[in-house]
């Protein structure tokens, strides 16, 4: 049966066009449409229902940090309380089973998982931890993202102190009389927050944000925003056939973990040393044609050299944008490529990611 989030009635009230996504009935856009929603998020503050994502709490003392380091390629020992890091769940071939955000909390860790992967992830992680710890994939919590330059002002009005958080850090806060957990993070290339809140308070919380000037934003704009920001979507740009090195996400592997053990560590080390055969790059078509996922990529001399994994029209950059994997020798900046769209070869160029870059406020680091 198709699942609904705690904000389902609110989506309907705001005339959402609903689609099934990862087993949930989710809003793709509201009455303003994807482009307006996208631009509003870049200039003001958008609210996203991301409650379909998994919120996995792992509790345990003693060896939990050590045991999790055997699963994730990051330096958890150095992670401060309430600090977050981006990481991956990989198999022995270093292929990505999910990408995730892990945050150190009191007496444990909170891991935010992709909706389509969360049940599998829970099973894999629990098995790797030998069922030693208390793992809770919380269904009684909603997850709401507030994104955009006004997010901090709008949220601060109702949640005092939240604007002092640094990027990729979180903390416990009060909303009305209940406890909520907030991290300063997001998936749009904007400053913003993700709020974990009890299901039965989620609607009230969102209504408060709306009355302070925020607007509901659907998954359609979430996708165009993340693509402009050069961020990967699991299932499109990364999956069980790609490694973090191939995905050009080497930065997310902690330097002091490269020589240590975790699933796929030997392959990661080898790929860092010797390079990879294919690598993810940003691609800009020379005209407005959109090259969507699975579009074939050709070289200047008409050799098939890769495939597009995501492509759309970027409303803020006012240009067709894409990313995909190409053979390594074609991955240099400004390499001329051709994209086969509806039988025609469209000229394009390898370009820097992200397509859209925000000037962050001093003291806030985008990672």
């Amino acid at each position, binding site marked *: 049966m198709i699942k609904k989030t705690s904000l389902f009635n609110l989506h309907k009230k705001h005339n959402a066009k609903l689609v099934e996504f990862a087993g949930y009935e989710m809003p793709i856009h509201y009455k303003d*449409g*994807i*482009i*307006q929603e996208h631009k509003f998020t870049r200039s003001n503050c958008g609210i996203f229902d991301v409650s379909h994502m998994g919120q996995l709490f792992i509790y345990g003392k003693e060896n939990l940090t050590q045991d999790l380091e055997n699963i994730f390629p990051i330096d958890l020992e150095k992670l401060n309380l309430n600090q977050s890091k981006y990481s991956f769940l990989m198999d022995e071939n270093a292929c990505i089973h999910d990408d995730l955000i892990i945050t150190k909390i009191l007496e444990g860790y909170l891991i935010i998982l992709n909706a389509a992967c969360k049940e599998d992830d829970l099973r894999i992680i629990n098995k790797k931890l030998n069922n030693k710890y208390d793992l809770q994939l919380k269904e009684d919590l909603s997850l709401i993202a507030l994104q955009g330059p006004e997010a901090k002002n709008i949220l601060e009005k109702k949640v005092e102190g939240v604007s002092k958080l640094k990027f990729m850090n979180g903390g416990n806060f009060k909303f009305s009389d209940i406890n909520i957990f907030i991290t300063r993070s997001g998936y749009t290339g904007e400053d913003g927050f993700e709020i974990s809140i009890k299901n039965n308070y989620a609607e009230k919380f969102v209504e408060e944000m709306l009355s302070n000037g925020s607007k509901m934003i659907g998954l*359609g704009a979430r996708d165009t925003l993340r693509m402009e920001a050069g961020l990967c979507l699991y299932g499109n740009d990364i999956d069980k056939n790609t490694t973090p090195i191939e995905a050009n996400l080497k930065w997310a592997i902690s330097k002091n973990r490269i020589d240590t053990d975790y699933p796929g560590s030997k392959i990661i080390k080898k790929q860092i040393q010797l390079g990879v055969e294919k690598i993810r790059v940003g691609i800009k078509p020379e005209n*407005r044609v*959109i090259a969507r996922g699975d579009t074939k990529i050709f070289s200047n001399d008409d050799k098939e050299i890769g495939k597009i994994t995501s492509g759309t029209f970027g409303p803020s950059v006012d240009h067709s944008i894409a990313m995909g994997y190409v053979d390594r020798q074609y991955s240099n900046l400004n390499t001329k490529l051709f994209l086969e769209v509806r039988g025609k070869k469209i000229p394009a160029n390898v370009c820097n990611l992200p397509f859209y870059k925000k000037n962050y406020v001093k003291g806030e680091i985008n990672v």
Partner: protein
Amino acid sequence: MSDVKYSKEHEWLKLDGDIATIGITKHATEMLGDIVFTELPEKGTSVEKDGTAGVVESTKAASDVYTPVSGEVIDTNQAIVDDPSKINQDPENSAWFFKLKIKDPSEIETLMNKDDYDKFAKETSA
């Protein structure tokens, strides 16, 4: 005032003598969402009834544009190529797609009038 006719593929057609102006319906634009790219047929080419005669892409997906009648393309609307958002703004008027010198006037009779189209659009989108 000439009569406007509609196709099951959500195109509209306005006839003036033997020249048909063709575009996509308001209902089609509402289903597509924000249109960000348009491709039109070349002037001078011949198109066959129900054949593809262009592409529209929204932020969500690409869709073919079909011609509801056969004929020779005598004009195309460059304004909607330069700014595809015009299609969402004024789909059944200034954002026309192409003009045809029609080949067979009897093909027009296979198309729907406004009432029938509105009913069809409502039923198929429900």
